[in-house]
């Protein structure tokens, strides 16, 4: 699908190459058809592959979520049995985290890093190709695990032993998939860091880089720091399962709690891996539509770095009901609360960027404003969760589900949608349908809130998550949540239609489609961007 529809893009390159400094004609040696995509080492091709992969995963993970919501529409067991239900929640989580959100940001990085820093391509094009093509096998392992004896892994995406050890062959498939995904992320990150640090155009100092580049630089460091730890943790699970080791087996002197510690040592930075690039995208969009430079650029950079550093010392807040020593709980609580300061600074900076600007509200800006408003709600619920005594009362309830969907759906995913609308004109050379884009935003935003806002109420009142069935007093809000989900899910097909329509044609996009955009891809490259970005480095003012 991706191949058929995006292939047309290159034909436009020559026709619009009027500002391309003659770069447009360097793409004559690459294969065409399917092999172009399999063998491609071009950062834009690979970025496109990542983005389509991510979208397919988003729809798959979304389909699982809709089955979950169908089951939860009413109390009782109607649609799937509890075993399958556990598999659905587990795979929804894993697919969305590793399949949808992370690859989407890598896709943006591939497209934008060379263009925004004035480089011709990524530092290691062949490794770039490998890091993408590792993803489909991992996805097949994850999705395929539904069809093996014993069904999909049903222990939640956190894979806690000993429950995890009880799973069938699917458990091994999941571990293997996580290994592959980890390797892919590490290769992608190495590529991104090297490109950013070594291949910037002369004059592009670190503190002149667009914020998207900064957030990705920091994210990539987080990835290479924690992905190996996750790989270690799941390998220990594997050896516990098959080779009689006792890392997490209390009988042999191990401790299931240790898995939680190792997992969340990865898991919390992972949360920021999924949100920092989102901060970057929003920090590109907001100034562009405010026609005003980003407020507090350097404080944004420092805030991002401090969030990244703090992310390594807060993992214990996922484990407040484990029964850690009270001093440890206190430490993790205070460290967690501290994160709200740099995060708050970011929100204030975005609002200050809009302040006294010259605002217009094209679709990307709607997503960015939606991001700021809804992500902040997720931040508030995060602050509530950070307080240990309250967290004990709401741990593993729908309050937590609501919290992380506000930060990951209306946070990470909103920025991805906003980013796609923002850069589609640059990617394809065509404008998307503005009216439909706005429909997509409003449909998503309204149904998102119908779906997830009531989950705060459910969680506070004590509805436990990962439940296939629930007491009657939770029926009404669950019904609303399911209704919202059934609008939210199909609304994303509208997005597919808009993107396909934009790729096929439409009003031609200008080089600098957005008046206030000031990064290199808008100021120095035509729309659509040529196959190779900057063969000779751009001259910076």
């Amino acid at each position, binding site marked *: 699908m991706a191949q058929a529809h995006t292939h047309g893009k290159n034909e436009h390159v020559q026709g619009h190459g009027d500002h391309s400094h003659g770069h447009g004609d360097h793409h004559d040696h690459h294969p065409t058809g399917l092999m172009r995509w399999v063998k491609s080492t071009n950062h834009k091709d690979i970025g496109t592959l990542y983005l389509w992969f991510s979208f397919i995963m988003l729809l798959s993970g979304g389909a699982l979520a809709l089955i979950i919501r169908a089951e939860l529409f009413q109390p009782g067991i109607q649609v799937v049995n509890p075993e399958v239900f556990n598999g659905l929640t587990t795979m929804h989580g894993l697919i969305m985290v590793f399949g949808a959100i992370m690859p989407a940001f890598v896709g943006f990085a591939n497209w934008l890093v060379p263009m925004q820093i004035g480089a011709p391509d990524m*530092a*290691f094009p062949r490794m770039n190709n490998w890091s993408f093509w590792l993803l489909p096998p991992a996805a097949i392992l994850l999705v395929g695990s539904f069809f093996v004896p014993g069904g999909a892994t049903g222990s939640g995406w956190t894979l806690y032993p000993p429950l995890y050890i009880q799973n069938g062959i699917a458990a091994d498939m999941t571990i293997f998939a996580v290994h592959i995904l980890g390797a892919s992320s*590490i290769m992608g*990150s*190495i590529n991104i*860091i*090297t490109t950013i*640090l*070594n*291949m910037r155009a002369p004059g592009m100092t670190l503190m002149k880089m667009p914020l998207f580049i900064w957030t990705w630089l920091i994210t990539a460091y987080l990835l*290479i*720091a*924690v*992905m*190996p*730890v*996750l*790989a*270690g*943790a799941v390998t*220990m699970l594997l050896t516990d399962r098959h080779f*009689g080791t006792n*890392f997490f087996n*209390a*009988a*042999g*002197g191990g*401790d299931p709690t*240790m898995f939680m*510690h*190792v997992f969340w*040592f990865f898991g919390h930075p992972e949360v920021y891996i999924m949100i920092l690039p989102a901060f970057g995208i929003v920090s590109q969009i907001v100034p562009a539509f405010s026609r005003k430079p980003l407020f507090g650029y350097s404080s944004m950079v420092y805030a991002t770095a401090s969030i990244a550093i703090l992310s390594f010392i807060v993992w214990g807040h996922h484990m407040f009901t484990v*029964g*850690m*020593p*009270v001093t440890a709980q206190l430490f993790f609580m205070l460290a967690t609360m501290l994160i709200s300061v740099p995060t708050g600074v970011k929100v204030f900076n975005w609002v200050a960027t809009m302040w006294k600007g010259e605002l217009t509200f094209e679709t990307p800006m709607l997503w960015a404003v939606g991001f700021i408003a809804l992500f902040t709600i997720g931040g508030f619920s995060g602050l509530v969760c950070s307080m240990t005594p309250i967290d004990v009362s709401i741990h593993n309830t729908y309050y937590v589900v609501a919290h992380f969907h506000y930060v990951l759906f209306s946070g990470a995913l909103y920025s991805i949608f906003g980013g796609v609308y923002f850069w589609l004109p640059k990617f394809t050379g065509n404008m998307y349908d503005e009216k439909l884009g706005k429909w997509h935003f409003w449909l998503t935003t309204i149904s998102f809130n119908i779906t997830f806002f009531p989950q705060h109420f459910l969680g506070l009142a004590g509805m436990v998550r990962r439940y296939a069935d629930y007491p009657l007093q939770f029926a009404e809000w669950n019904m609303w949540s399911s209704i919202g989900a059934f609008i939210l899910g199909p609304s994303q097909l509208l997005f597919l239609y808009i993107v396909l329509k934009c790729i096929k044609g439409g009003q031609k996009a200008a080089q600098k489609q957005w008046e206030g955009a000031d990064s290199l891809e808008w100021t120095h490259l035509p729309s659509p961007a040529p196959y190779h970005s900057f063969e000779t480095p751009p001259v910076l003012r």
Partner: protein
Amino acid sequence: MSAASLDRQNRAMLRKLLTIVVIMAGFGWALVPLYRKICEVTGIAQTRSADSVANSQIDTSRWVTVEFVANNNGSLSWQFEPLKTTLRVHPGELTQVMYRVVNNTGRKVVAQARASYGPVAAAQHFKKVECFCFTSQTFEVAETRQMPVTFMLTPELPRDIDTVTLSYTFFDVTAQAAPPKG
């Protein structure tokens, strides 16, 4: 900058970043001994050897209630219980209590006991001089065995802790303990 020198730079960077990856992978595995060490120091982990007990003064000014708890894990559903469920002791005082197993499973069982303490802050002050949890135990069919535990609460036990629980969980390790070769 020439293409060749950029290539060299990139490769140098690749090596550096791979080093970070390797270090972090090592760190991931190093978390295991690190965690065990922390648990040992805080007393959360059961050590498989006897604690050495310094000759300490018995603090007769305070009483601590010690509760004894026995648990079975998984399919191991034999009779396992402390002979006394609670006892009042002074910190610094060596005390012996007995646990009893009745192997009514109808088969020979190799089992390993694991100690745990509550509250978690008391763990590092709970010293065991003698315990059946130090090694795995073999129980013949229908065997009844009484097993002693000799312990002491250190006088440094925080003053606000007046009730401490010593818990043992027996795990069936017959499968792992099967004759190593042939």
